[in-house]
C-alpha cells in the first residue's frame, strides 16, 4: 500500500512522523506534493525518506490512500486538478476542517462515478503518536476502507468512526485542543516562574502535570470530578487554587472556546459551500506553479479572470 499527501505542511509532516515512528508504513512508500519547496516541513519530510514532488498528479499516480492535507479553501482547487487522475483504487481522505464529504464527492463525480471519499479530523499530537482522530465514511467508501484508515490512524493515537455531523464539534474539542493545552502550560509555567521556579523547569513540570493527569483519567473509570476531589485535601492548597479558577470562570471559558472553534468551523464550511474563492486566497506564485505542471490547464482548474469558482462551470469530458 502506498500513501500520498497533497500538501506538505504541518499536518502532512506530523502524520508522516507518526507513521514512521509506529512503523505502520515505510516512508519510501509515501509521496508528498507541494508547490512551495521552501517550506521547512518539505525539508523535514525529505529527511524522513518521503518522496517529494511539486506535482499533485504524480502523488496521485503513486498512491492508493491519498490524504488531502491542504488548507480548506484550497481543496476544491486541488480536486479540480487531480480529478482526472483518480482511479478506482484510490481512497481519498480529506483532513480539511469544514469541508464536507458531499462537497468533495460532488466535485469528483465530474470525473468518476463512485469516488471513495472519507473525511477525518485529527490533531497535531499524531506526531508523538498521541493523536485524537475521528473519521466519517463517504457514500462509496466501504467498511474495509474505514478499517484501513483506522489502522493507519490508530498507529498514531486514538481513532474512531463518527457521524459526519459531529466532526465540527470534534474540531472544536480535540482539533484545537492541543492549542488550549499549550496555552495552559505556558500560563502555568508563568505561575511557576512568578513563584520562583526557573522557566525550563516550570514548563517541564507544567507539561508533565497535564500529561500525568490525562493519563490517569484515561486509565480510570472515575469521573474527572471525582479525580479532582481526590487531589483536594480539606483546606489545602489545591482547593484554594480551584476556587480561584472557578472565580475566573475557568470552566465556562473552556466551554466557550470549544464552542467558538466549532462555530467557526461551521462558518468555514458555509463559506466553502458558497462556492466562491477569491484570488486573494491563493498566492499568485502558487497558482503559477500549479499551472506549470504538465497536463494542467487553466480551464481545468477553473481559473477565471475575476475569481476562481470552486465548482467549475467549464464543460469537461468524463474520464473513463
Amino acid at each position, binding site marked *: 500500500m502506498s500513501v500520498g499527501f497533497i500538501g506538505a505542511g504541518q499536518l502532512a509532516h506530523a502524520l508522516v512522523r507518526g507513521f514512521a515512528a509506529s512503523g505502520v508504513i515505510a516512508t519510501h512508500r509515501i509521496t508528498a506534493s507541494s508547490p512551495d519547496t521552501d517550506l521547512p516541513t518539505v525539508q523535514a519530510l525529505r529527511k524522513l525518506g518521503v518522496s517529494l514532488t511539486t506535482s499533485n498528479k504524480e502523488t496521485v499516480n503513486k498512491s492508493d490512500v491519498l490524504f488531502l492535507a491542504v488548507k480548506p479553501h484550497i481543496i476544491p482547487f486541488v480536486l479540480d486538478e487531480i480529478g482526472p487522475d483518480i482511479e478506482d483504487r484510490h481512497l481519498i481522505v480529506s483532513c480539511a476542517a469544514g469541508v464536507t464529504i458531499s462537497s468533495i464527492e460532488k466535485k469528483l463525480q465530474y470525473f468518476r462515478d463512485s469516488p471513495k471519499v472519507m473525511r477525518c479530523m485529527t490533531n497535531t499530537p499524531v506526531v508523538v503518536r498521541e493523536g485524537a482522530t475521528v473519521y466519517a465514511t463517504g457514500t462509496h467508501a466501504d467498511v474495509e476502507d474505514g478499517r484501513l484508515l483506522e489502522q493507519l490512524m490508530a498507529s498514531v493515537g486514538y481513532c474512531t468512526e463518527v457521524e459526519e455531523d459531529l466532526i465540527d464539534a470534534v474540531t472544536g474539542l480535540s482539533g484545537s485542543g492541543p492549542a488550549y493545552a499549550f496555552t495552559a502550560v505556558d500560563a502555568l509555567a508563568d505561575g511557576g516562574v512568578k513563584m520562583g521556579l526557573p522557566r525550563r523547569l516550570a514548563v517541564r513540570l507544567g507539561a508533565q502535570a497535564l500529561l500525568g493527569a490525562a493519563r490517569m483519567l484515561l486509565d480510570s473509570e*472515575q*469521573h*474527572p*470530578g*471525582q479525580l479532582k*476531589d481526590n487531589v483536594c485535601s480539606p483546606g489545602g492548597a489545591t482547593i484554594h487554587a480551584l*476556587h480561584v479558577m*472557578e*472565580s*475566573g*470562570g475557568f*470552566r*465556562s471559558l473552556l*466551554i*466557550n472556546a470549544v*464552542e467558538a472553534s466549532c462555530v467557526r468551523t461551521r462558518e468555514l464550511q458555509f463559506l466553502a459551500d458558497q462556492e466562491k474563492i477569491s484570488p486573494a486566497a491563493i498566492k499568485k506564485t502558487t497558482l503559477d506553479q500549479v499551472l506549470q505542471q504538465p497536463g494542467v490547464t487553466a480551464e481545468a482548474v477553473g481559473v477565471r479572470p475575476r475569481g476562481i469558482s470552486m465548482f467549475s462551470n467549464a464543460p469537461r469530458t468524463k474520464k473513463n
Partner: protein
Amino acid sequence: MDPEMDSQLRIGFLGAGNMAYGITKGILSGNVLPVNIKVSAPSSRNLGRFQELGISVTHSNAEVVCGSDVVFVAVKPHLVPPVLNEVSPHVTDRHVVVSVAAGVTLATLEELLPENSVAIRLMPNLPCVVQEGALLFARGSHAKQEDGALLRSLLHRCGLVEEGPEAWIDIHTGLSGSGVAFVYLFAEALAEGAVKMGMPSALAHSVASQTLVGAGRLLRDSGKHPAQLRSEVCTPGGTTIYGLHTLEQGGVRAATISAVESATERARELGRRSSRK
C-alpha cells in the same frame, strides 16, 4: 445501640423552639417514649405542640435537668450562660449535656458546667423538623466514645448524624446550617426562570421544590459523585448542557464556594466573640 437502653433513657430539653421540636420528633421515631421526655420553657407559647405528643412540660429548667440523663440545651445562644449557671448545681457526671447553640464553644460550655461534666456540641439544621437534618457533633473533653454513640443512636432518625472535631462545626454551619437557605435561594431562582418563560408561579414553585427533593434523593441514595450524575443528565447538544453553560458563565460554582466560606467565617467570628464575653 441497645434498644432496651434507649427506651429507659430520660431526655430533657431546655428551650422549646424549632430545634428542640425537630429533635424531639426524631427521637420519638426511635425507641424513646414520650413519657421519658421533658421540656422546659419560660412561657407556654411553644409548649403546646410538645404536649400534643404526650410529652410533659414545665417552666422549671432545674426540674428538666434533675429528671433527665441526656439534656439538650436548646435556648438562644445569648441565654446559654444564664441558663447553665442556673442549672449547674443539678448537673452530675452521669448527665450528658448536648448544646445546639450556634457559636457557643465546648470551652465555654465546660466553663459554665461543673468540672468533669460530659458536654457535647451539636450543630443540627432546620430540616431536622422533617427528619431530614444534617447533624454534626463534637465531643467535649470528658465525653467518651460511648457518649457519642449514645447521641448518635438517639438522633439517627433526625437525619444524617456525623461526628467531627470542633473545628468542623463552623464549616458545618456554613455548609448545611446556612446551606439550607442557599438551596431556598436557588429554588426561588429556578421558579422565577420558569415564570419568565411563561409558567404560572404556583406551579413553578411546586415543581422547583420537587425537583430539588428528587435530585437530592438521587444524589444521596445513588452514591455517585454529583459530577457523574450531572454528566448523566446532559445529553449531547441538549437543553441541560446549554443551561449549565449559562450557569458556569454566571460563576455559580465560585459564588457557592464563596458563600460557604463567608458563612463559615462568620460562624467562627461569632464563636470568638461569644468566647470573649
